[in-house]
Every structure is written in structure tokens, then in C-alpha cells.
């Protein structure tokens, strides 16, 4: 079956992309990893700094805290809209789909800018509150952690909706009929039957959102205004503002290790086929 000719054809087809990514992605990544143990001098100094530097540690802790909060809010919000998208009337489904897909297709910059327009000192919310006389001084709603959490949640909801919706679509309709036949009310069916049956989708959505949130850069940089720096922004600052490539590289490698561990969990507990990444 496996003739030399067919393996040659396979190489001609699959080879270009594999060679391309090896040359322009894998090898340069190894170069970055090498920076982390050679800049400014050979050794593990950068990793020791990473573990001992209170600033770096506080950034990692803040990142985990923000990501955890964002993940919980995002998955709950996504669950609600995914529920209507999958099980609503045809009109409700269409509306929900538009509300999910329009933000999904719009660039992260535009969306972060939208939050600035809404929440900044001269933005919509503060203008209205002031003209209605509720407040005299504008509230600080962005350029802080609140803004970061709002912006990240907004960005990540569609990514959580896809795995949740695909878990909800795969349910067996007869289970609900059975539950109703045995006298369960709609609320009880939702909590005791529907939600537990979508558990794999919830796990998948949680991990995807958390992984995406960890490496997030654009939204925190714009809405955090440099006050609540997260890991990805720290890498950027170490690269371009205080050229400290060794530390930047060490943080990158650490981030990849964390993400790899989380992805291993994802593959273990929710088969990737269930997560509907392709929507």
C-alpha cells in the first residue's frame, strides 16, 4: 500500500507548510528560548529573577486573578446567550447569532476603542451621568482593572459561545421530554438536566477562554492604560521600553509552558472535537 511514489506525493503536498512553519516559527522560537538562557550572560539568571522579582511575580499574580474573574464572567454570559442561540425560537436564534457574530468579526482594536468611547472621562456614560446631575466629577471607568475586565470579557464571549453551543446542540431531545413527563418544571429541567449535560462544553469553554486571556495584549494595554499591566504587556515593555530581551524571553517561555499544561488538560477532559473551535 505504502509505495515510495505516494510518500513522495505526500511530501510535495504537506511538505511546504511543514517546512515553512519549521523555518519561520519553530526555529525562531528556539532562538527566543535560547535568548532566555544566554542574555545578558549564559545561565538561568533570568529564570531566577523571574521567580524572585516581586514586580514580575505581582504581574503574574494579577494576570491570574484577572484571567480567573474574566473567565467566570465570560462563561456565564456566553452560556446565557448560547442557550437562546441554540434553543430559542427561530427569530430569537437569528438575533442571538447576529449579536455573537458581529462583535466576533470586528477587530479587537475597534472593540477596545468602543469601550473607551463609552467609559472614558468624556465618554457616553460619564456625559450622561453628568448631564443628568448624578455625578459632578467623571467616574474613572477605564485605564484601570475594571476597564480591562470589561474589555476582555467582551472580546472573549464569542469564543466561549462556540464550544458551549456545540455541546448544547448535541443533546438528546428525549431526555427533556422524559424529565417533563416525570413532572420536573422548566427551571428544574434547566438546572438538573440541561446544565449538567453540557458539562464538557463548559470545561472546554473555560479552558479556551482562560488560555486566550493569559496571552492577551491589546485590550489590557488600551483599557488598562499602563496601570494594571498583565504578562503579555510586560513582555512588550521588556522588549521595547527597557530593552531586557533575556527577561522578556524567559517570561515568554514560562507562558508557553503554562499554556501547554492547560491545553493538555483540555485534551484530557474535553475532546477538542467537542469544542467547536471551527464554529
Amino acid at each position, binding site marked *: 500500500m505504502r509505495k515510495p511514489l505516494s510518500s513522495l506525493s505526500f511530501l510535495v503536498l504537506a511538505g511546504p507548510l511543514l517546512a515553512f512553519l519549521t523555518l519561520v516559527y519553530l526555529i525562531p522560537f528556539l532562538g527566543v528560548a535560547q535568548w532566555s538562557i544566554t542574555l545578558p550572560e549564559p545561565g538561568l539568571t533570568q529564570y531566577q529573577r523571574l521567580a524572585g522579582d516581586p514586580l514580575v511575580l505581582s504581574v503574574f499574580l494579577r494576570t491570574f486573578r484577572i484571567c480567573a474573574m474574566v473567565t467566570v464572567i465570560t462563561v456565564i454570559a456566553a452560556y446565557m446567550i448560547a442557550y437562546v442561540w441554540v434553543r*430559542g425560537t427561530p427569530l430569537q436564534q437569528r438575533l442571538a447569532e447576529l449579536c455573537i457574530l458581529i462583535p466576533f468579526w470586528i477587530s479587537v482594536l475597534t472593540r477596545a476603542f468602543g469601550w473607551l468611547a463609552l467609559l472614558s472621562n468624556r465618554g457616553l456614560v460619564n456625559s450622561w451621568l453628568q448631564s443628568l446631575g448624578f455625578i459632578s466629577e467623571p467616574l474613572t471607568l477605564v485605564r484601570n482593572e475594571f476597564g480591562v475586565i470589561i474589555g476582555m470579557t467582551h472580546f472573549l464571549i464569542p469564543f466561549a459561545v462556540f464550544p458551549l453551543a456545540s455541546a448544547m446542540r448535541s443533546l438528546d431531545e428525549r431526555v427533556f421530554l422524559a424529565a417533563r413527563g416525570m413532572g420536573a418544571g422548566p427551571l428544574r429541567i434547566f438546572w438538573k438536566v440541561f446544565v449538567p449535560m453540557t458539562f464538557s462544553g463548559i470545561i472546554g469553554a473555560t479552558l479556551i477562554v482562560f488560555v486566550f486571556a493569559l496571552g492577551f495584549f491589546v485590550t489590557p494595554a488600551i483599557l488598562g492604560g499602563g496601570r494594571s499591566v498583565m504578562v503579555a504587556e510586560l513582555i512588550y515593555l521588556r522588549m521595547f521600553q527597557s530593552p531586557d530581551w533575556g527577561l522578556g524571553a524567559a517570561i515568554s517561555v514560562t507562558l508557553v509552558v503554562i499554556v501547554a499544561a492547560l491545553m493538555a488538560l483540555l485534551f484530557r477532559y474535553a475532546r477538542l472535537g467537542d469544542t467547536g473551535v471551527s464554529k
Partner: protein
Amino acid sequence: MTSHRPGLIALTAAALVAVFLLLPLLAVVPVSFTAARYLSMPNGNYALTHYRTLFTNPDWANSILLSIRIGVVSSALATTLATLFCVGIWMFRPRFGAALVGFVLLPMIVPPVVSAMTLYFLLTGLSQVSSLVGFDTWLGVVLAHVVMIVPFCVVLIMVSLSQVDRRIDLAARGMGASVWQRATRIILPNIKFGLLTAAMLSFVLSWEEIGVTLFITSVNAITLPRLMWSGVRDNIDPAIASISVILIVLTTLVLIIRMVYSSLRSAPKH
């Protein structure tokens, strides 16, 4: 039909989420008509100043043209590489196929900032060899964008290949078709819709890419998102609002047209 419809509580919760999702997109609209030169509400003075800027200021026009050029080239390259790869995996089903697919999906999973650093490393290295492909050149940006968008193409093309009936290909092979004939006459025509989607998605992804572009450009290769980034960061330029409104309106129109088209297409089948 569906026995279990969302109740009032679920609908209210979903409506709140929907408002949350659309609110920042709507907020951009009034801001884009402000007469002031800073981010503010129009307060009665509506002006089209910031829309005019997009056409009169050469920075905007240049960056839009550059983004289109980079998007078209990156999308063509990424779709071609991904198509060859996926067709190869589908036809030959190699033993380590899953691992190979996992490898090409890496740029989608690795945090963008790490990919950005990796590509920065690559392009600053290439700059020393060639001034054509390197840091802050449009071809350098194309190279980086292809890396970042190719996993999405692979996912989409794999999905549409998984819907192709293998027996058609087996029949062709049984009748003596070569690998080339099977690929071009049997497989590609069956996934042409998927290929089109992949090409469109990869154009959009390149068009709006900022995370990596930020690391690998400085003054020459200013794409549209790169220009918007400086406008958002330094002092908020209301021209960002007007370009945002245009992009939001375009996206919404395309999605609504797609939705109407697909419901028209699927309606007669029932």
C-alpha cells in the same frame, strides 16, 4: 419540535448579554460625529470632520492600501499552503497525521505575544541578510501574517474535507486517476466553498492583525490597525471612531446578507 424553549429569565439574561456585546459598537457612532479634536460627545455640534480626515490625510489612505495589499498576499499564500497540506493529510492519512496537524495549529494556540516575539526574532535576523524581507517591511509583515493565519485556514479546510465522501475518491482511484487528477478533479471542486471561506477569513484576520504587527513594524510598514493603535494610545484621535463606524457597518451588512442568503438557500429544501 424543540420541547424546551428558554423562559423569561433566560431571555432577559441573554438580552442583557446581547446589549453588553453591542453597546461599545454603538457608542462609537455618536463620538465619530464630534466636532472636537479629542474623544468627546458631539453635544449638538455634529460634524463630518473626522470622516473627511480619512480621505484627505494620506496616512490613512496609505495604511488602508497597505493593509489590503498585505491581506491579499497573505491570504493567498496561507490558503495555498493550507490547502496543499490538508489535501495531503486527507489523501494519505499518514500515521502521525494528528501530530502534524497539531504542529501547524501551534500559532493559533501559543499566546500571540510569544508568537510576536518569535517573529520579531526571525525578522530582525532576516533584516541582516536582505532588506526586502525583514523587520518593518511589507513582505516581512506578510510572512508573519501567513504564520498567524494559516492555522485558521487549516481548521476550516479540514472541516470541509471531513464532509467529502471518501467513496468518490476511491472510485476515481479505482479507475486509475493519478494523485494530481484526484486532487484537482475530485477533491478541490468538492471543497471549493470551504476554500473560499478560508481565503476570506484569512484576509479579514490579516486585515485586523495588530498583536504581532506591533512588534515587527516601526515607521515604514504602517498597516491600518497599526495606525489606529497609535491613535488610540497616544491621544485619542476621533478619526479612529469614524474608521471604526465604517468597519462596523461593513461587517454588519456582510453578516446580514450572509444570513439572508443562507436562509433563502436552505428554505426550499424543507
